[in-house]
């Protein structure tokens, strides 16, 4: 045991003596693994959110021209702009449909700060299922309910007033304030970690009121296709989200509502292709992380071999003092392994610790609840890969150290 302790003292002293190289090597491994971990966490959160939403709102109708992914990003995650308008009677028709248990109107045209304002009704806000303070019925067109992040970041509480800005995060010259219509915060949702944290909810009637007659813009201040898209006059929505009694009925509804001007989304199906998209994105990220890992391994090998050459005299000294080749090879191998294991541990801590620290912020950014300690499908193979690479590098360095005639080699220097 005391020999092991002595060996480890030597190993750590040597690593400390090459602090910069050791740090760079550890960081290289850690960075690669952290990327894999974060990608896995975010992909999982988005996929989970999409899957749950798929079950919650299996049928969505939006304007023609939008892709299924765009519709999901806009209606479920609130991180994309709606692509057009649909008539209100689509909502009314779905609401009356006996196959539909619940339908919700969605009218997205404005924003408050960087957060979208979702024009809907109180039933939708209630359907989110979040606990809340105040009143979330949206009974009056001036009522508003804020997500937890919106309230926190904009320092708003119940009773606060605000006006919306036209547009959904468009360019500054397109945006203008709807100064004529003031909202009063009636309710605030408790944090859910989901997309609702980063949204404000108002009545869709308020959106109509603002865009139908409440605003007279100055000539030339904001025109064009983008403005028209958000100009939701009376009787227009951007989407309708509906729930059916039986999932099979979604197919019937899809066929019936596939008509000019409308795009229908079978959310469950769309989520699968959506997941495929994220899986592909995850694979691309993992590929680059793998590449980083290979570079890190090459770096560690180069640093180890260079250090080996630089330390010939010291290693030769150990041989002269009677320390066997095996012990010296073990010393070199341990150094490499410790660097790899430290990189793996640090990568795990960074890859999960950063999402844990910033779970709310990341959740708000991607519109999904973050589970920071979730281990993605690619993470374990990446960790095993890093350890195997480290082992391979250690083996190469160890064999070189073992077969070197250290005393003769050091004599050449």
């Amino acid at each position, binding site marked *: 045991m*005391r020999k092991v302790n002595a060996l480890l003292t030597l190993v750590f*002293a040597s690593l*400390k003596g090459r602090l910069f190289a050791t740090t760079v090597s550890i960081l290289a491994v850690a960075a690669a693994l952290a990327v894999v971990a974060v990608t896995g966490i975010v992909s999982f959160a988005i996929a989970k959110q999409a899957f749950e939403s798929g079950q919650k709102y299996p049928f969505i109708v939006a304007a023609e021209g939008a892709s299924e992914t765009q519709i999901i990003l806009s209606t479920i995650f609130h991180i994309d702009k709606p692509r057009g308008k649909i008539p209100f009677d689509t909502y009314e028709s779905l609401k009356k449909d006996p196959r539909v248990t619940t339908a919700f109107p969605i009218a997205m045209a404005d924003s408050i700060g960087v957060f979208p304002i979702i024009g809907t009704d109180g039933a939708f806000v209630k359907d989110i299922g979040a606990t809340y303070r105040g009143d979330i019925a949206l009974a009056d067109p001036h009522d508003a309910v804020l997500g937890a992040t919106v309230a926190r970041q904009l320092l708003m509480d119940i009773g606060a007033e605000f006006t919306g800005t036209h547009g959904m995060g468009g360019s500054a010259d397109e945006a203008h304030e709807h100064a004529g219509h003031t909202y009063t915060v009636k309710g605030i949702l408790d944090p859910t970690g989901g997309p609702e944290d980063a949204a404000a909810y108002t009545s869709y009637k308020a959106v109509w009121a603002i865009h139908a007659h409440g605003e007279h813009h100055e000539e030339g201040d904001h025109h064009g296709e983008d403005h028209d898209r958000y100009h939701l006059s009376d009787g227009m929505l951007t989407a309708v989200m509906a729930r059916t009694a039986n999932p099979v009925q979604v197919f019937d509804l899809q066929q019936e509502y596939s008509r000019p001007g409308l795009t229908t989304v079978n959310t469950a199906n769309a989520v699968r292709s959506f997941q495929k998209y994220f899986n592909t994105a995850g694979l691309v990220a993992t590929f680059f992380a793998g590449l980083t890992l290979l570079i890190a391994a090459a770096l560690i090998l180069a640093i180890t071999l260079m250090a080996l050459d630089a330390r010939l005299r010291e290693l030769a*000294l150990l041989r*002269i003092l*009677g*320390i*066997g080749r095996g012990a010296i090879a073990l010393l070199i191998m341990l150094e490499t392994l410790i660097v790899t294991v430290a990189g793996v541990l640090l990568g795990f801590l960074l890859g999960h610790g950063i999402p844990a620290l910033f779970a709310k912020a990341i959740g708000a950014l991607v519109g999904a609840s973050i589970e920071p300690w979730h281990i993605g499908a690619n993470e374990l193979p990446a960790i095993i890969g890093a350890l195997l690479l480290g082992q391979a590098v250690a083996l190469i360095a160890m064999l070189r150290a073992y077969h070197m005639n250290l005393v003769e080699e050091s*004599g050449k220097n």
Partner: protein
Amino acid sequence: MRIVLNGLEKSFLDPSGNRRRVISAISADIAPGALVAVTGPSGAGKTTFFNLVSGLFLPDSGTITADKTELTALSERERDRWRAKEVGYIFQTFNLLSDLSIIDNVVLPHILIGNGAKGDLEKRAEESLTALGIGDHLRKYPHQLSVGQRQRVAVARALLVSPRIIIADEPTANLDDASARIVADAILTLRGRSTVFLASHDGRFNAVKPDHTIALGGEVSPCVR
């Protein structure tokens, strides 16, 4: 420890690929506790000779016997163990491990070799370093010490477990007068207890008559004793 060298030969390939004989027909019967002066010009093969005597290299031909152990018949691992237990090295350059503290430099190699328990070795190292005048520098690192102090650390390491063979290769070269005197005294006091192989151009050793002289560079002294 009695050392018997019998017809030692050793050659190396030089950088141009030619085989160069470095050690040629060395024979000697060295009694335990003897002081052996190893002489010869630079490049004569003194370091190679020391590496042969310590079992680090094997000769091309000839045998080395230490007491009843025929060194040249042992495996590399056995020779490593033998060297670790029996040989103390003091080099011209101090050859300390730069990343280890002074106390660790003295003690750690001996722990790795299995020459004793840590606590005991540390106690002896502290005593030895104090006797050599550097007891206040135990936790310092080699770069924080002067040249002479570093050589004293190397002496402490070499003598820590009272090896029966001491190899001192120009141990006082480049040292200031005070350090050289301390190191020379430490080595010479071992005579009689350890077999000391000494290569040195330091005049301090001229006053001491060796028991054997092994002159490298072609000539080999006869066995004196």
